[in-house]
């Protein structure tokens, strides 16, 4: 999210303050992450160890994958409150396919992904064709998906297929969640930057009416965007279940807020048309590094919530600052 703005501006009189402001505004999350890491390296010797960095990589995987899906939705000008519940439903459905329906593990894995995709398509259709605001449509899906998770599981954890558990394991020395995280980031980044669909998301989020008038199939784009968010949510849910060897009825509860926070910290605007996968990844890292650091420092759990809230407020402040610098 960086390079273009760091080159010095030609307007000499305002150059210094202008550069400083723009740089901060466009790289706020990265600067924040670096400052956070430096502070933690000084505060505790346990932070900068290979194992701890690996731990952070594993811990960021779920929220980052969720947030990648959320990035599509927010770039396209919507919001998806259902990703946490859809993640739980997909994992639980996958567990059910394996344990109760007796499907082979790989089919249970794909079945879980299909459930997430379907939930996303329903979200998108309700938004694009049913004219429900995305906030309402996905709020409804949050409740329905969490409810269905409980119906399927009867409130109890279900064991996952070995293929799903593999997602949470290792290949050789490399943890699978990190591998999946990298793959998901590459795919998401490719979709957003290198495809017509990705460019259309920015267009729809920037100005849906203009996008429609210039001939973009806005409704179909919106359905695809939510479908992608559902699919990424399902992947995150399976990843989480894989790490625990079981699908939990309360898995990923409240994760939608982490995902939204990651996207916003990463520099996306909730009014749409702005956002990058790299930024979202940094945003997710900020959240996870804070939690990791506060654990390492044994900070009281009451204060942890305060700190995380302040970070989100700061990030949104940077968003406001960015729009100001853009307009001036």
């Amino acid at each position, binding site marked *: 999210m960086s390079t273009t703005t760091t080159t010095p501006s030609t307007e000499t009189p305002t150059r210094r303050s202008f550069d400083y402001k723009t740089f901060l505004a466009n790289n706020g999350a990265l600067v924040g992450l670096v400052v956070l890491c430096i502070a933690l390296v000084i505060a505790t010797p346990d932070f900068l160890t290979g194992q701890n960095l690996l731990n952070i990589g594993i811990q960021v995987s779920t929220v980052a994958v969720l947030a990648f899906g959320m990035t599509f939705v927010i770039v396209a000008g919507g919001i998806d409150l259902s990703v946490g519940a859809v993640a739980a439903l997909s994992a639980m459905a996958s567990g059910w396919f394996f344990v109760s329906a007796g499907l082979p593990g790989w089919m249970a894995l794909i079945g879980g992904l299909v459930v997430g995709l379907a939930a996303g398509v329903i979200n998108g259709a309700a938004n694009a064709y049913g004219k429900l605001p995305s906030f309402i449509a996905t709020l409804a899906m949050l409740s329905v998906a969490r409810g269905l998770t409980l119906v399927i599981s009867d409130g109890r954890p279900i064991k996952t297929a070995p293929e799903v558990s593999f997602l949470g394991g290792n290949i050789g020395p490399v943890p699978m969640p990190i591998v999946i995280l990298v793959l998901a980031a590459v795919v998401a980044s490719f979709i957003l930057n290198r495809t017509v669909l990705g460019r259309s998301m920015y267009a729809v989020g920037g100005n849906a009416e203009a996008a429609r008038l210039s001939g973009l199939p806005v409704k179909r784009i919106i359905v695809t965007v939510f479908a992608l968010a559902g699919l990424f949510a399902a992947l995150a849910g399976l990843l989480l279940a894989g790490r625990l060897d079981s699908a939990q009825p309360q898995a990923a509860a409240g994760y939608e807020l982490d995902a939204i926070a990651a996207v916003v910290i990463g520099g996306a605007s909730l009014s749409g048309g702005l956002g990058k996968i790299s930024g979202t990844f940094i945003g997710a890292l900020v959240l996870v590094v804070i939690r990791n650091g506060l*654990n390492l420092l*044994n900070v009281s759990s009451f204060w942890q919530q305060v700190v995380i809230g302040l970070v989100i407020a700061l990030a949104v402040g940077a968003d406001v600052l960015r729009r100001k610098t853009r307009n001036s």
Partner: protein
Amino acid sequence: MKSSSFRRIAAVTATAALILAGTTACGRGSGDEASGPKVVLAISTLNNPFFVELRDGAQAAADEAGVDLYIVDAQNDSATQANQLATAAAGSTKAVIVNPVDSDAASASVGELTAANIPVIAVDRTVNDAKLTSLVASDNVAGGKQAADELAAAMGEKGTVISLQGVSGTSASRDRGAGFDEGIAAYPEITVVAEQTANFDRASALDVTTNLLQANPGVTGIFAENDEMALGAIQALGARAGSEVSVVGFDGTADGLTAISDGSLYATVAQQPAELGRLAIELAVKAIAGDDVEATVPVEVVAVTKTNVGDFSK
């Protein structure tokens, strides 16, 4: 434009409500042929295996006693529970068993029930400022102490301990934590090096324990305020669980008991949720018949280790 989209929302909402009402009614259909006294069980949440087991225990006892049991789930929302209790007060309900979402928030609704002379039995958590017929609960503070004793025994009464706390501010977390702190203080050679919340959640416990082990690699004991977190800690420990590091949980859920059998979990403090449910029904039946009932009925919490796990596994 605006009003049409509003109408559409209203229509969708109404349809959804009707469908939901329809399915709920179908679900209840099986209860119709029962002619016994109607008892409402207002439960805080069925999202948690503990309360599911409590419900199963109550249902089994109700079937046996010929009680027509209506179960309502507040999904951990005090306002929902207040509505459900108001509905119970309006019907032909003979007794109400309430497992309050919040001990304070439920007191007004319970007051209305007792004013209407409907016996109210609180289960697992009490209702403050209410004329309860009876309270059936297990003692979390005593349980926390037992957990400390079990963990100390497993660690040879020396070493360092991590404590995983539940959702901040809940009574279960407070009581279990207080009991554990009190219990572990009796062992001068054991120090608690970190106390962090993992929100009673297995996934959080996995992450939090991984982080804490990074800062405290020499830990030999972990206490978790519920079994879900204990299982998350075991996941974080991998092969070290049960050999180098002893883990003690709380609740005695099915997964927890399995972990004790395979040796990864050293002990858990079992509440007996099914027993809580069964006793509540028994007390309700007594109260409806007009018999005297005890004001508080404590349900034993039991430390479960490998030696007695067979008595608890279902």
